[in-house]
């Protein structure tokens, strides 16, 4: 095991452990905070894989914006503060079975296909901001513009959906 693999294994253990806690804890606010740990550990995994720009973007957008948004939603939907007993549906055994089957299926396929695949982790150039910026603004400039319009549409949609008079009778 090289040093990269050891570090990646530890980060993966953190990410996986906190992900399991996200889906199993009985406290909604703590689930959001464990999600922060998960997303941070995945950003660390990106760093080990030399994708430094993606790691920083992950921290900025996911940890910095998405989790805050989720916490605001937790607050606005009057989620129980403290442990709650009714967060899990009755489907838990079947859900666990489906999850285990999915994991088994994916891991079998991946191990079978990539048993002898090794990456050469040379730092910097492939994952740098310069390389990715060049890719986004040259090769992917059209999807970039479309995503901008998508974000605008999502913003307007969220504003419209959050109006207090939407959904009340007589407002149409």
């Amino acid at each position, binding site marked *: 095991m090289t040093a990269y693999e050891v570090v990646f294994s530890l980060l993966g253990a953190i990410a996986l452990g906190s*992900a399991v806690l996200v889906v199993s804890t009985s406290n909604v606010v703590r689930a959001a905070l464990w999600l922060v740990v998960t997303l941070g550990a995945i950003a660390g995994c990106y760093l080990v894989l030399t994708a430094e720009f993606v790691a920083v973007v992950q921290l900025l957008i996911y940890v910095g914006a998405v989790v805050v948004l989720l916490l605001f939603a937790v607050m606005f939907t009057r989620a129980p503060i403290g442990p709650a007993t009714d967060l899990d549906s009755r489907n838990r055994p079947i859900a666990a079975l489906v999850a285990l089957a999915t994991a088994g299926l994916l891991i079998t396929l991946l191990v079978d296909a990539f048993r002898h695949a090794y990456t050469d982790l040379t730092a910097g150039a492939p994952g740098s901001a310069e390389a990715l910026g060049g890719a986004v603004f040259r090769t992917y400039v059209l999807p970039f513009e479309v995503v901008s319009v998508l974000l605008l549409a999502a913003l307007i949609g969220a504003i419209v959906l959050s109006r207090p008079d939407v959904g009340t009778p007589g407002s149409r």
Partner: protein
Amino acid sequence: MHLLFPLVLSALLFAVGIYGLLARRNAVLLLMSVELMLNAVNLDLVAFDVWLRDNLHNGQTLTLFVITVAAAEVGLGLAIVLQVFRVRATVAIDELVELAEPDTQPALPPDQPAAVQPGAVQPGAVRPAGPATARRPGLAPAGAVTLGAGPAGSDGAEPVDGAPS
């Protein structure tokens, strides 16, 4: 580094996300599980991009776009969850079993004809009973449901035509 490390981690994170999606009742926790699944996919994309040493950086660029679209999706999804909470006062998904709005008695818009049937009144779906009702394309023919029935037969509730007038 062996490629299986990020790939197996991604598969396990995806499976954990699936468990969360199926087992949780709170809608916000569902969105958190969806975020877990999207992160698993991003990890796969980045791992393959680094392995293939892609000149066009397809994997990492697509990861950036997935992060952006996921942020937009979470924003809109939470707006919907908030709206549902405003109307139904719950975000537990197994309590949200009806698509229809709860029965209410709204004030009639002033330009509606007076041929209002007593009983359940759906907002915006008031129609004068009778075959002279103007039918928009795409609606079921009059004989199929109670649209063209006589005044005694039809009530104001239109299960087919729920659109606002």
